[in-house]
């Protein structure tokens, strides 16, 4: 059996919530040894080891308990730093320095240590201490505003009269997307820093701003503004900069069932008409070529929906894709869990947890042919690896460990 790709890399993990744990989970998936530093005092909510959330974002990691507010904790951390390759944290910027664990302090005991600090706004700048969730970042970045329909939507309740003020109501994303995005940049930069360390013998401090990570997803729209002064506006499901018609999200048979369709070539249009069995309207002048179709989008969409509404989204996708046309079911999470493509590619895996029992989790989408990800198992229980780490790795005696426990350091 091949060795795992990141075997031998040890990561000291101070992360919590989503963005940070998502990053260290990815590193663990490929064989890194991730030691998560926890404490009885903080292991609640998202950091409660026996919840589904914790199990999802912390699979395959080790857990130790260390009471960071105890003055003796710092020395233990420094001993761990000495035997680690990477330290990752996603606190607000003052937390690690307050513990006496700034990059400079870590580098004193391990000169080539790689430290990654990920925070909402980065380690510097006037907003560095801002508190943020994924949704906060999304609002700051512009995507909450930009993800909406290009027309006014009837307000959903009397409390919200944005429609009357003449504004487009922002809708935004229905989930904390900015967190995984920041986590991916963390993994990417850590791997690059390891590459550099192995070549040059130098560690470094990586400073990631979640805000900037997310702004990177809007790069082209930003450039259109800085270069042309063009101001991006909500596009709904319109094709935006790509030339396509028909294009969009169409209602299908069933309750809240939808399918997306995207045509960009004349060849696809011909195939599309064939799938629909050449309805009379398809031969009309107003749909006879691309620019004509583009001019009559609302009428065209209405006619297409008359066809899609008679079919399930799975039928629409199957019929169109077999004819060589881009189409896809708008899948909810239940659809995803039963999606034949995802199942065939083993996108889901079973994890057995000592308390939660058997559960399902999404696999990594990074599929390597020779050294694929190997999920080691469930998330750890709180402090389950104290013995391995404190006695095994740090060589503490049983008495030492007992004393630290009695004094509330290992806690």
């Amino acid at each position, binding site marked *: 059996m091949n060795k795992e790709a990141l075997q031998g890399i040890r990561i000291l993990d101070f992360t919590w919530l989503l963005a940070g744990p998502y990053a260290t989970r990815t590193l663990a998936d490929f064989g890194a040894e991730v030691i998560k530093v926890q404490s009885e005092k903080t292991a609640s909510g998202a950091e409660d080891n026996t919840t589904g959330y914790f199990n999802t974002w912390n699979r395959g990691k080790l857990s130790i308990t260390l009471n960071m507010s105890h003055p003796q904790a710092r020395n233990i951390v420094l001993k761990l730093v000495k035997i680690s390759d990477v330290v990752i944290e996603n606190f607000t910027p003052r937390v690690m320095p307050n513990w006496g664990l700034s990059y400079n302090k870590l580098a004193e005991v391990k000169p080539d240590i790689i430290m990654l600090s990920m925070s909402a706004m980065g380690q510097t700048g006037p907003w560095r201490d801002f508190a943020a969730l994924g949704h906060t970042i999304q609002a700051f970045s512009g995507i909450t505003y930009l993800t909406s329909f290009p027309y006014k939507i009837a307000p959903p309740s009397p409390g919200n009269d944005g429609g009357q003020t003449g504004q487009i109501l922002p809708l935004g994303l229905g989930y904390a997307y900015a967190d995984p995005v920041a986590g991916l940049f963390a993994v*990417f930069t850590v791997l690059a820093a390891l590459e550099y360390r192995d070549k040059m013998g130098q560690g470094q401090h990586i400073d990631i701003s979640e805000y900037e990570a997310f702004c990177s997803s809007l790069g082209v729209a930003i450039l259109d503004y800085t270069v042309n002064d063009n101001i991006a506006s909500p596009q709904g499901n319109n094709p935006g900069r790509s030339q396509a018609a028909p294009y969009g999200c169409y209602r299908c048979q069933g309750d809240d069932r939808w399918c*997306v369709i995207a045509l960009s070539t004349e060849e696809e249009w011909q195939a599309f008409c064939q799938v629909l069995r050449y309805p009379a309207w398809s031969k009309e002048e107003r749909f006879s070529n691309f620019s004509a179709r583009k001019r009559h989008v609302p009428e065209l969409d209405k006619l297409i929906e008359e066809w899609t509404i008679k079919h399930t989204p799975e039928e629409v996708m199957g019929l169109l894709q077999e004819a060589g046309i881009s189409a896809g079911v708008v899948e909810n999470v239940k659809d995803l869990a039963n999606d034949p493509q995802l199942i065939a590619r083993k996108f889901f895996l079973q994890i057995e947890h000592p308390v939660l029992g058997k559960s399902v989790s999404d696999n990594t989408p990074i599929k390597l042919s020779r050294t694929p990800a190997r999920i080691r198992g469930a998330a750890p229980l709180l402090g389950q690896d104290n013995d391995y780490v404190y006695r095994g790795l740090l060589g503490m005696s049983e008495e030492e460990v007992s004393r630290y426990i009695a004094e509330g350091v290992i806690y």
Partner: protein
Amino acid sequence: MNLLEGLQILDLTDEKAVFCSKLLADLGAEVIKIERPGGDSSRWLGPFWKNSPHPERSLSFWYNNSSKLGITLNLEVKEGQEIFRQLVNKTDVIIETFPPEYAKKLKLDYQSLVEINQRLILASITGFGQTGPYRQYKSCDIVASATGGQMYICGAPDTPPLKPYGEQSYFVASLFAAIGILVALRERHQSGKGQHIDISLQEAVAATLGHVFTRYFYDGAVSQRQGYYDRDGSFCLLPCQDGYIFLTIDREWDILVNLLDNEGMAEDLKDNRWQDSQYRRQHFDHVVEMLTRWTKRHTRAQLFLLGQLMRLPWAPVNSLPEMVNSIQLSERNYFVPVEHPELASSEGQLDVVAQFIGQLCLINQATNGEGREVGDKLLRYHYPGVPYVMTGKYMMRRAPLIGEHNTQIYQGRLGLSSEDLKRLKANKVI
């Protein structure tokens, strides 16, 4: 930054993964973008410089191909494939987005390429991946967004599903692929062997759904579109004097009621029954109504700074210019100047002069960090940079012109003569 200096990459991607090689180029890898003779079709993707379509003026091409080298090569003819094999022999990584069957036909599949170079790392990014019943299916951003589960949960309960702004599936698939490449590179140091990385847009989107899978697999909950507010009562978007504010309202309840009370606007929300988050969820419309009365008396800036002062994760719902002009981004030098000398020469020159004379106000904008500078017959634009600070200074070069580095690569790297080059050009190979 030159963290990945020495790493050589051939870029055969279309818009689905063009950002992947940019990520690596940003860290100092040498990326050679291979375009078909006459230029890649993605050069026709808007928006364009000064809104005028031209293959050297696509801003999406500019952004996604900055810091890369560019050559042209026809991979569909034998002579082109011959040259490509020589390039494969000298490269570490190839990134491609061809349909699996097409790649096989051109002998660009992993089996064929690994015979030339067993250290090669090949990253393939397609709509549904290299295996499974949908592997031949076509895709694009909206199809990936739909089949990856993103669209269903964006939008409001009374609207159709909504695709998030931009091309998010290409963005995250590129990130996953870039990570896969660095993981494979690390492994190659041990084994001396490369491998094939198979990335599906659908899976890339699904893998960034946050808690959606967890809620389903543990609680059986199917996440729905919820638009302006979270049905669990933890946050909402509310109108202010000048736009919208993102507010969290669950754990912050007491602080929030105090803030309203300070302005005499808390009314019945002070009653004990509102302490119960369950009760608040059941009467969420009333909560929203009361909060809206308050938020509408204020501007976004007043409210979000007030919230942040109390360590609450509040934010203004910004437009794109507001984001670009935010003081935090300029203080951290997120935007980097990129020079476009090619626009100041030949046909572009008149445009530049006209712009220079006609819009002198731009110079003022440049000095107050607006992002654009015009002067000395040189155009310099501000590009979004990288979201990290690492060892070394970050620099960005403008995207290559069509075939700009043909001579450098074909003569300098492969040792072809200038006669060879002329012949290849005549035969439309390059």
